[in-house]
């Protein structure tokens, strides 16, 4: 790399239409800084996002971007990664996107372990549709759709990710951009699927899970004596003990092998650069099987 990249290289000229103070600004900034710190060039990165306030993020960053359908960012991202394994593929979306309509893809993407980084901007509510409950909303939480309080148990995304065989499970908080930057960097460097839940407060509709609320509760793993992010059982145990409020890299499998590296016959050279039409010899060999 001749010229040093700066996070400004990842800025574009679109003013985000998020509400002032929205946690998503910090996620955007952290992504930009992480990309720069890793010395990536904008064209090497593709940000694939879902639908929601959060989903708009792919339009606010100067990289390739695909703003898909609600809940399907990871399916798009995995298809893209298979097509071009040289790309840095980052998927992002809201907690409704990733844990309600898209939860199935989230869990199966974790199992599959492609070399993708996935950020869930978890504000424990539906922002874009104006304040309904999300699978992350706490019991009793009052929203437009639960005026008497939610009556469903909230999901525990990190425990779920561990149960699904996650090889990189982390949690950030919009108030701690430095930590988030380093999580994202580690996630991108991780050889496999990096799952990152980010507490990203919705200042407009969620008056309970505010910046202060989180600040009082988060437990950075660094503050836990003897915490070992390579110990899956310990990670699970601590998550249960802290009610999921751990932040930092909660678990990473140092021996993770990315899906792309397990596919039989899959080459290092990206699929997109392989020739299309098979050679005549190859074709004839294929056809011969049917005689």
């Amino acid at each position, binding site marked *: 790399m001749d010229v040093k990249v700066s996070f400004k290289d990842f800025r574009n000229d679109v003013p985000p239409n998020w509400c002032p103070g929205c946690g998503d600004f910090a996620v955007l900034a952290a992504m930009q800084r992480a990309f720069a710190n890793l010395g990536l060039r904008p064209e090497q990165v593709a940000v694939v996002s879902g639908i929601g306030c959060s989903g708009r993020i792919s339009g606010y960053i100067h990289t390739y971007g695909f703003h898909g359908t609600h809940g*399907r960012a990871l399916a798009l991202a995995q298809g893209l990664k298979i*097509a071009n394994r040289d790309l840095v593929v980052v998927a992002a979306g809201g907690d409704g996107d990733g844990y309600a309509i898209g939860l199935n893809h989230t869990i199966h993407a974790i199992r599959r372990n492609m070399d993708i980084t996935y950020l869930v901007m978890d504000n424990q509510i539906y922002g874009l549709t104006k304040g309904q409950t999300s699978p992350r909303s706490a019991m009793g939480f009052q929203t437009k759709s639960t005026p008497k309080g939610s009556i469903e148990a909230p999901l525990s995304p990190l425990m779920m990710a561990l149960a699904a065989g996650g090889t990189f499970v982390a949690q950030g908080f919009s108030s701690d951009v430095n930590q988030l930057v380093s999580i994202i960097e580690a996630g991108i460097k991780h050889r496999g699927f990096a799952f990152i839940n980010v507490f990203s407060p919705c200042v407009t509709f969620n008056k309970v899970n505010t910046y202060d609320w989180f600040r009082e509760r988060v437990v950075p793993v660094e503050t836990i004596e003897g915490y070992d992010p390579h110990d899956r059982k310990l990670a699970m145990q601590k998550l249960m003990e802290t009610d999921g409020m751990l932040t930092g890299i909660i678990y990473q499998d140092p021996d993770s092998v990315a899906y792309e590296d397990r596919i039989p*016959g899959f080459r290092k050279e990206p699929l997109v650069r392989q020739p299309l*039409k098979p050679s005549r010899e190859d074709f004839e060999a294929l*056809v011969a099987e049917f005689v």
Partner: protein
Amino acid sequence: MVDQLSWKVGGQQGEGIEKPGDLFATALNRLGYYLYGYRHFSSRIKGGHTNNKIRVSTRPVRALSDDLDILVAFDQETIDLNAKELRKGGVILADARWNPRLPDGIENVRLIAVPFTAIAQEIGSALMKNMVAVGATVGLMDLPVEPFQEVVTELWGRKGTAVVEKNMQAIARGAEFVRQELGGPLEEFKLAPADGKKRLFMIGNEAIALGALTAGARFMAAYPITPASEIMEYLIKVLPKFGGTVIQTEDEIAAVTMAIGANYGGVRAFTASAGPGISLMTEAIGLAGMTETPVVIVDTQRGGPSTGLPTKQEHSDLNAAIYSTHGEIPKIVLAPSTVEECFYDMVEAFNLAEEYQVPVIVLTDLALALGKQTVEPLDYDRVEIRRGKYLGDTELPPRERLDLFKRYELTPDGISPRPIPGQKYGIHHVTGVEHNEVGRPSEGAANRKAQMDKRLRKLAHFRMKEPLRVYAPHAQPDVLFVGINSTEGVIREAIERLEREGVKANHIQIRQLHPFPADDVRPYVDAAEQVIVVEQNATAQLAHLIRLHVGAREKIHSILKYDGNPFLPKEITEQAKGLLKAKELI
């Protein structure tokens, strides 16, 4: 000597009755006969009647025959269910072990009890009763044994020559038994010699898969479903050799969306499913349309609605393929009629998807998907790769940092240049929300109209090279037959019979279903006295499309079938005669 013959083998599902059928057909195919097969089976793994009906001919055949010459039965149920299909003088070859008998009311049929199991056990294993049954056929038809040697060697060669030997012995013993039983060869079961040419023998799903691979598809994402799974299973075997891969996804939504993601990344990628899975893809198809991302989707139609008749024949997804998804997108729907067309149309589907940057749906049907048939050599040189305005291989000219690439440039033909992620000067944004030329969300009225017009302009005058498959010997026919998918062969066969009765009939098969090739279809409709649309569904979907796009409502009639079984030639012949008589055309 006869020049065609119809053979069926039946038994309990899961007992390996596919083997004898395959063996029999492969050997005959190698002798240069033309074959056409249809498997009758149920949605269960073990048990329940299944059969494989195979027609053999010295000329090309693409339909089942009305009746049956030979029935090979592995259980009494097979006889009970199928004996009525046998022609006068037809023969049943059944295992002597369970004392086969003719059902009441079946006459003029000969039942030969062959000790399938006993002979097999003598040779070494009851499992080989299949081979004895094949041998019995060989004896009845007075076939040479050599071509079977070859196939048997391929099948069991890796288990050692002893196994091959034993299987061949089983065939020989079965043949011998029947020859003795008959006294001498029966002319009516002896096929005229074939031309000896080597042709392919494959199912539509294999042709679809091979077409995709040859077109350069290197990624398939799919979820198992009958009758589409073989497409994915074939590619799972061969794609790794080409560096490609198949992902069995968590569901069909993920499957089609991954395929879209890969196409966005510049790789030709697709998915395949049947009704239920296709319905689940509805939202994603709209995304492909809106973002102008190429994607190919194969729908191997089966009996609907809902889970319906998962193992039966039908064409009831035409409307869904054309109209499904909210809002309005440009979309192409192709419908191959033969296994050859499955191959070539898949290649074309990938070309069109990239040239027009639209989703392309390829409709087949269960008979085409799973029916194994003789296929003329596939022409490597006819396979042409056209990527349209794909710029993935281009060095793009430099541009200012925030001067995004106009991925949705308003061009005269509506198609915009298409860079792919990773390219230095191609950065742009893609979204399913209405967007401007660089792909940023934009709701402005003028932009909306311009982008909508642009997208719809792409296919405004679309016409594939041969939107119809045409047989039109008559300038002013009494009747025009219109068909789709696997009805091609059976319609043609009905026409042959009608022509013998003096009916002048033309025939078109719709290959390009959407946008509907009205200008191509109209002259044929106009020229004909009456039009008969043949399709396997209950609401006459294809006939409605012709009414809508071509008009001529008064002369359009339908021959429909929706009981799950493919048409037989006589069904079409009879119904057509009835219609033509009513119109005083015969």
